[in-house]
């Protein structure tokens, strides 16, 4: 199996997200970057499949220069090769244009499988892997919670549905699947893995020549802003002792928990 894993660099959960002065982007100075969470599960699933059935795992990321770190982390965990798609300013609003760039970068690789996270924690489109399925003429499944290789031409996946339901789906290869969190336990890089990483190649694909904006249907950013609250929250303040006693009082006397 020749597997591509799409991995995006996003702000980590604890980074403060602050708007730029013109409300068109967020301030990047204080952000700590990490790999998008569901993408780490996608990588693990690809590595497990390679270990069981052989093949190659290629980690692919598109974005600012620092995105190469995502690829390096994947190489240290066991991916064989990196593919970095360069981009100076990535706004991420138009996922369809982004998918066209990926299509150009991936089309000659003839992957059997593309694994991606089900959704990125920053832009949250939940689309890239599925757009690529259509553009690269692959079968697809979203929200995958388990995989099984049936034979050289077919895999079986467990898809998550709402409210605790699941569905089995069989996919002819090549296939692009989006991975939901929790289906495996992502590994940590070993010391040896980190040493090996330095010897593994990262190919660079320059996206600047690609015109991905040819469509007559387009999306533009109007503005970004902090959401307004819909509910009036009563904040309980004070020292930890004061808070504990106020909250205890509230629970006992107002909410009547006992």
């Amino acid at each position, binding site marked *: 199996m020749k597997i591509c894993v799409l991995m995006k660099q996003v702000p980590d*959960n604890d980074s403060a*997200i602050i708007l730029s002065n013109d409300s068109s982007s*967020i301030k990047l100075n204080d952000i700590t970057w990490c790999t998008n969470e569901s993408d780490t599960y996608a990588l693990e699933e690809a590595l497990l499949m390679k270990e069981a059935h052989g093949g190659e795992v290629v980690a692919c990321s598109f974005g600012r220069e620092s995105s190469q770190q995502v690829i390096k982390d994947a190489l240290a965990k066991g991916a064989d090769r990196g593919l970095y798609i360069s981009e100076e300013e990535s706004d991420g*609003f*138009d*996922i*369809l244009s982004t998918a066209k760039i990926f299509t150009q970068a991936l089309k000659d690789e003839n992957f059997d499988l593309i694994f991606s996270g089900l959704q990125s*924690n*920053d*832009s*949250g489109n939940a689309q890239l892997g*599925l*757009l690529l399925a*259509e553009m690269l003429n692959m*079968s*697809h499944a*979203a929200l995958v919670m388990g995989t099984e290789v049936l034979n050289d031409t077919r895999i079986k996946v467990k*898809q998550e*549905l*709402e409210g*605790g*339901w*699941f*569905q*089995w*789906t*069989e*996919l*002819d290869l090549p*296939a692009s699947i989006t991975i939901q*969190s*929790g289906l495996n336990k992502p590994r940590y890089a070993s010391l040896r893995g980190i040493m090996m990483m330095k010897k593994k190649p990262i190919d660079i694909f320059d996206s600047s020549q690609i015109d991905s904006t040819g*469509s*007559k*249907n387009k*999306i*533009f*950013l*109007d*503005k*970004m*802003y902090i*959401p307004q*609250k*819909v*509910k009036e*929250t*009563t*904040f*309980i303040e004070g020292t*930890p002792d004061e*808070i*504990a*006693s106020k*909250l*205890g009082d*509230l*629970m006992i006397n107002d*909410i009547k928990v*006992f």
Partner: protein
Amino acid sequence: MNIFVFIQKDNGTINRNSLEALAGAQQFARATDAQVSAVCFGEVNDQLTEYDIQQVLSISDPGLNSYNPQLYCEAFNQVISAHHPDMVIFGHTYQTRDWVPRLSAKLDIPFVSDCIRIQNQNGLILTRQIYQGKINTDLKVEGSVLVSIQSGAYRLDSIVSGNTSVQQFEVNLDSVKCTVHPGEKFQESKGSVDLSRAKIIVAVGRGIGKEENMPIAKELAEVLGAELGSSRPVVDYGWLPHEHQVGSSGQTVSPKLYLALGISGAIQHQVGMKGSSNIVAINKDGNAPIFEIADYGIVADLFEIVPKITQTLKDHKG
């Protein structure tokens, strides 16, 4: 402007999120001079003809009797090629997540997913949440667009009644070579925890930090006689079994008290617990989205507060 709304059916019943999308479309249409049509695969439910919409397009083809993303895409492709709607609206269901991106690529029409508002402000403005609900973004559109609407963004009771006609639309799906083969649906064996009946839930999020810290929440739950709930990551990490997960892919709960410890309040979590009578949230980040729906908020480190509350309640019980 010509708006189509796709009506998803689950075992013959209209999906609630699709109807919310219809309510949103009607609301937008009233503020503009847009016309709304519903598109429905298979038999048209009577319910659908009782709404104030221009028409219902009914597409009956054996290939559409059960869900297949490739057949759905091709059928809709033919609808759009014949009618050229300016905007097609879907509920942001798991099924929408699976096939509408593919439709977007096929048609070369962008799909703006998981929107919380469709408005007219000198043109169409679509609002969606980014950075896990910490920021909203307004988007403008040139040309046609596909849109999905977040669950709960529009109220079902705001749907306007009227009556409408049903038009049949013929599709030909012979050209589709299916490479996706959906199989049976199933539920994993039910666990012993039924959170939907719980009166009090102490819910744990990623803010608990590590498995060794779980007793802090468990002790509070014990003194309250509460059930333990959790967000998805806590289950993903194996700190609690899946039956404790609250949210769109877990349980829906409505206790008298929902105490959220270190939970950010992502929409997929909110849909499972926003019906609780009293929501108390402890989170060190005052901007966490959970405070948008909490009745009582404590902006603090849960490790400093929770043991003290447990003690206060223990003292009270004596």
